[in-house]
């Protein structure tokens, strides 16, 4: 028996068939291009964007649901069984959750772009069905974590709680576009964004970083105490921000800001400690993106907090949101995907002489370099465009982002083509 067959045979419970995680990753790569293309079409509407249906909202949700959530679900399905040592559950449910998420994302974002309440509501309900399946599978798995990796499991529980809150708020917001029954749509929209970006995506990113960053960098595991401080501060921020935004209590919003900053400080302290003790000296392109994401996390939070003191800057909230969404979360996830896709593929692909394929043979540097350069250009140009309300800069930035997303899609298709 070959080495590849041996380890696949010995790890069936924890290593999913390649088609499962990769269908999420490739779909996320397609939505990544669609999100930038939509933003390109909506460039003129971005300065001063403060909510409401249209292309900007559609681009935002193509990015958050189509790329970030899609990637998070695919990665969780593969990483949770490895972290907890327990199987993830029924494979048909994973396939169905993917299908529902794809259909739901298309319907929801189409409804947002066309301002169609019925399409939006159908899309939102379909996304929620996908999330419910995901939550059921994840809960079943984390329940079996026992004493293994308590910090990762605690982040998982926090993310699942956030998922329930942001999905419920999201449905209310969508229904409100036609019903108009909410007294404070904007306040609830901010709470929805906080629980989605910080609660769900953030806690998942913080939790999986405990394993992934030391694993990629070959570093000692991260300091646990800072991780618990980060988690506590993050949960305080979520509760305070959720109530503060919904009930318009500024003191609670400030407390949420302090909580997110403290949480980020704890997390960045952990990551710094991990990288300081690493054995792998050359970390490559993925870590350029991951380090950029950490810088943008800090910058985005500082800018968001300063908006509380400078509420008159019209484009400030959009810029802070852009830094956190694209600068932090998108940079982090694309960096992680660049590592994890060849890594997972090498477990399934068979190379020369029946040996496992090498990760280095399953990656392509040219498209990744293209993506990196375009991603940084997009960040810089759109930031400048938002800061000075110059639409051509936003247009150029969105075009760079679109070009970079094509590079990333090229890379994703190359990796998948090597799977046998």
């Amino acid at each position, binding site marked *: 028996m070959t*080495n590849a067959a*041996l*380890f696949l045979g*010995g*790890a069936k419970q*924890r*290593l999913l068939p390649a088609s499962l995680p990769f269908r999420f990753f490739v779909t996320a790569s397609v939505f990544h291009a669609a999100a930038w293309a939509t933003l390109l079409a909506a460039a003129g509407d971005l300065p001063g964007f403060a909510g409401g249906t249209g292309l900007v909202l559609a681009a935002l949700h193509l990015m958050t649901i189509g790329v970030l959530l899609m990637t998070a679900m695919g990665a969780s399905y593969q990483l949770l069984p*490895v*972290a907890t*040592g327990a199987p993830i559950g029924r494979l048909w449910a994973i396939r169905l959750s993917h299908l529902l998420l794809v259909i739901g994302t298309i319907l929801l974002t189409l409804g947002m772009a066309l301002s169609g309440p019925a399409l939006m509501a159908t899309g939102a309900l379909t996304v929620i069905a996908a999330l419910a399946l995901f939550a059921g599978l994840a809960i079943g798995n984390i329940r079996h974590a026992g004493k*293994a*990796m308590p910090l990762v499991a605690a982040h998982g529980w926090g993310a699942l709680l956030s998922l329930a809150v942001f999905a419920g708020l999201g449905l209310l917001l969508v229904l409100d576009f036609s019903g108009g029954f909410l007294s404070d749509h904007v306040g609830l929209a901010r709470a929805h964004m906080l629980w989605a970006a910080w609660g769900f995506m953030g806690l998942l990113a913080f939790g999986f970083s405990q*394993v992934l960053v*030391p*694993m990629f960098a*070959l*570093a*000692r*595991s991260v300091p646990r105490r800072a991780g618990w401080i980060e988690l506590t501060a993050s949960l305080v921020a979520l509760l305070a921000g959720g109530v503060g935004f919904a009930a318009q209590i500024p003191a609670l919003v400030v407390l949420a800001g302090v909580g997110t900053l403290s949480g980020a400080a704890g997390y960045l302290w952990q990551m710094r400690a991990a990288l300081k003790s690493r*054995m792998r000296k050359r970390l490559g392109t993925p870590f350029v993106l991951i380090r950029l994401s950490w810088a943008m996390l800090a910058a985005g939070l500082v800018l968001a907090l300063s908006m509380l003191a400078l509420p008159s800057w019209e484009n400030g909230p959009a810029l802070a949101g852009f830094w956190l969404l694209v600068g932090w979360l998108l940079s982090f996830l694309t960096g992680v995907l660049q590592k994890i896709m060849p*890594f997972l593929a*090498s*477990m399934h692909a068979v*190379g020369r002489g029946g*040996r*496992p*394929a*090498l*990760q*280095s043979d399953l990656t392509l540097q040219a498209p990744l370099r293209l993506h990196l350069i375009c991603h940084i250009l997009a960040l810089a140009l759109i930031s400048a465009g938002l800061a000075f309300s110059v639409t051509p800069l936003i247009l150029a930035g969105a075009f760079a982002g679109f070009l970079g997303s094509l590079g990333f899609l090229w890379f994703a298709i190359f990796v998948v083509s090597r799977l046998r």
Partner: protein
Amino acid sequence: MTQDLPGHDWQQEDGLHINVQGLQPPEPMLGILGRIDSLTAPAQVTVHHDRDPIYLYPELAERGWSWEIVPGEPGEVRLILRKRP
């Protein structure tokens, strides 16, 4: 140097043994790769683990090592690693 790495090791007639049982991921990977990277001559290494370390295998392949799961104690996953010529 290897005292700084997670897990512990000892020499037997059949080569280096590394025990990473009871460690949380990714410490077993670090303990194993840190030790085999410091070996100067081709060798056989026996790893005592408590789970099938599926994420270790791509790293071993990248370094030119092969592996084989062999019978071990109850609750133990025992691996024999060999540097490919």
